[in-house]
């Protein structure tokens, strides 16, 4: 009697276990940590769409290793603590070999460091601080870092005979990185950055910061700020009358994603090139599925992140993090929606194309 009971229990247990492993074996899961809420929620939503489009594209072409691809998306909440618990959940509960994310450098760096410490692969799809170079072995970027963007921005601003500018960026690893890079490049060209303001994230007013910047009477204002905070900055600059001077935005779609169009009218800037040679299909698929143009330039980088990861897993022949790390180095150069992706020795994108853009009720090419 007792033996029969034990036999029953073990039979049921092994049946459940085989069902569980069988269902897990039918999909390859990747993880993504995105800012679905918080200051960058608009861009986070666009990144999520890029990931969805990539998953559809991969699954329409035999999936990964013959199985369906699935990307588990977790919210970072716009702060590092929530992002880390999301990453922890992805790595220990969902057991994904690759984690993509995030958008803000101050969040990507701790998430990336955690993921590579756990032995998995980290792909940066939206951050650009030069400090990302130091995350470590196993972290790759499909988007160029700010040493490249600052050089482009400094050259672009200087070429318009604007020699005395004021600079504002968030007080985190992204803002600190882009501010020091821009100042270095701009001053090496012969210009002057008369005021550098690093604003605290999450405030509901930036009037005093703007007033401090305006006191040095610059010819132009160079800025970079996350969606909701940039909306406040742009609105208050308009209310203070500062928008009459030239404003130059680094990553202009991020800076204007939530801004009232009237406040940003006439701004210029740079943006990561979002539709490279192979990108027309991305834009078409986006318009078909979501019935509007891509909301920012960062969705296509999330798309390319998933595509490169899928290609690397196929090349590695297994969803094993160590093999995927090795395969990531050999699967490039890869022709993605954002152009040709190649990594340098530190796994960062070697060449990053930028577009000169301006804001005319929305961001358009100049």
């Amino acid at each position, binding site marked *: 009697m007792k033996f029969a009971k034990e036999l029953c229990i073990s039979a049921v247990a092994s049946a459940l276990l085989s069902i569980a492993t069988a269902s897990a074996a039918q999909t390859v899961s990747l993880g993504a940590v995105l800012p679905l809420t918080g200051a960058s929620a608009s861009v986070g939503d666009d990144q999520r769409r890029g990931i969805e489009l990539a998953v559809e594209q991969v699954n329409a072409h035999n999936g990964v290793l013959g199985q369906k691809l699935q990307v588990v998306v977790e919210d970072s909440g716009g702060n590092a603590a929530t992002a880390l618990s999301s990453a922890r959940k992805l790595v220990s509960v969902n057991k994904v070999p690759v984690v993509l994310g995030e958008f803000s450098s101050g969040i990507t760096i701790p998430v990336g460091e955690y993921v590579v410490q756990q032995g998995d692969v980290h792909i940066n799809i939206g951050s650009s601080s030069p400090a990302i170079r130091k995350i470590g072995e196993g972290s790759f970027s499909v988007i160029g870092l700010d040493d490249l963007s600052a050089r482009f921005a400094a050259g672009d601003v200087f070429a318009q005979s604007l020699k005395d500018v004021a600079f504002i960026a968030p007080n985190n690893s992204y803002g600190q990185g882009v501010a020091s890079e821009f100042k270095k490049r701009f001053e090496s060209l012969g210009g002057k950055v008369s005021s550098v303001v*690093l*604003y605290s994230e999450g405030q509901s007013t930036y009037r005093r910061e703007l007033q401090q910047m305006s*006191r040095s009477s610059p010819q132009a204002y160079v800025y970079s700020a996350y969606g909701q905070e940039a909306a406040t900055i742009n609105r208050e600059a308009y209310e203070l009358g500062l928008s009459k001077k030239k404003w130059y935005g680094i990553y202009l779609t991020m800076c204007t994603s939530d801004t009232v169009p009237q406040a940003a009218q006439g701004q210029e800037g740079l943006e990561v090139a979002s539709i490279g040679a192979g990108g027309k299909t991305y834009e078409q698929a986006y318009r078909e599925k979501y019935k509007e143009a891509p909301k920012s330039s960062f969705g296509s980088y999330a798309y390319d992140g998933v595509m490169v990861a899928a290609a690397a897993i196929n090349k590695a022949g297994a969803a094993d993090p160590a093999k995927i790390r090795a395969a990531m180095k050999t699967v490039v150069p890869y022709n993605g929606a954002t152009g040709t992706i190649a990594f340098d020795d530190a796994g960062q994108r070697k060449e990053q194309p930028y577009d000169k853009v301006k804001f005319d009720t929305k961001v358009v090419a100049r």
Partner: protein
Amino acid sequence: MLQFIVDVLIRTSDIMLVAVGLSVVYSLVKFPNIAHVQYAMLGAFGTLALNRTGLPFSLALIGACIATGVVAVLLNVLVFKRLLRSGSSIAMIGSLAISMILIAVVLGIAGSRPFRYSSGLSSPITLGSTIISVDQITSIACGFGCVALLAVLLFKTGVGRSMRAMSSNPALAAATGVDGARVVNGITFLSGALAALGGTMLGLTESVHVGLGTNLLLPVFAAAILGGLGNPLGAAAGALLISVSETLVTNLDFGWLFGTTDVYVPVTYISAASFVILLVALLFRPYGIFDREVRRV
């Protein structure tokens, strides 16, 4: 100079109404009501909700002030009066709990995104060498106007006299025929309405978001304490002093110390300035700078 005055007025009007509301009710309830700043947040969201249903802004504002006043009275009667029986620290912890509940409820209904009352921009007006927007003028006018009206109410009307009597000595006031319960409810309603008005004005010049009350907590308490808790006009003066110190600190050019121009204290340190002022003032005048009471040794 004009820019300095305008900046000070804008910052004062941000915190003045809420600080005055806090001060008005403090002498009655005798505990620091942390939930008071959340009444400001509630008022801002109330105006937003009523505005979105189609009411014009001014009517939505009045409706939200009345509603918040009622909420303040209800919370006082149902929660704080009972907690006060166990002591003022228990009541303060209770107000912290109510604060968290209010934030959670609004967060659940409205989400964490900031809102604005109108989707357009407020056009800037040039006054001499300075620029100010229509919203900011509205906020300043509303703030100072209401404090003036409150002063008239408190010092020139019978109702105000009863309120002041209750605030300074409840037992004696009851003995002279002042209806204690009605006056307390009236004062609580007034403080809630003032907080709601202050919160709406802040939402007008900045944005309506769940953190609006929490951001106000420290400056409002500093202003109320500086002016002497229980002294409403003192709280207005305290708000003015806090904003003067904040604006001075960020406007002063320390370039002469470094031999260059345009060196300013980063805005992140701005709260430190007002709290240093508060600390210094309390060291010399512990009951607020307008304290005139004689205390027995």
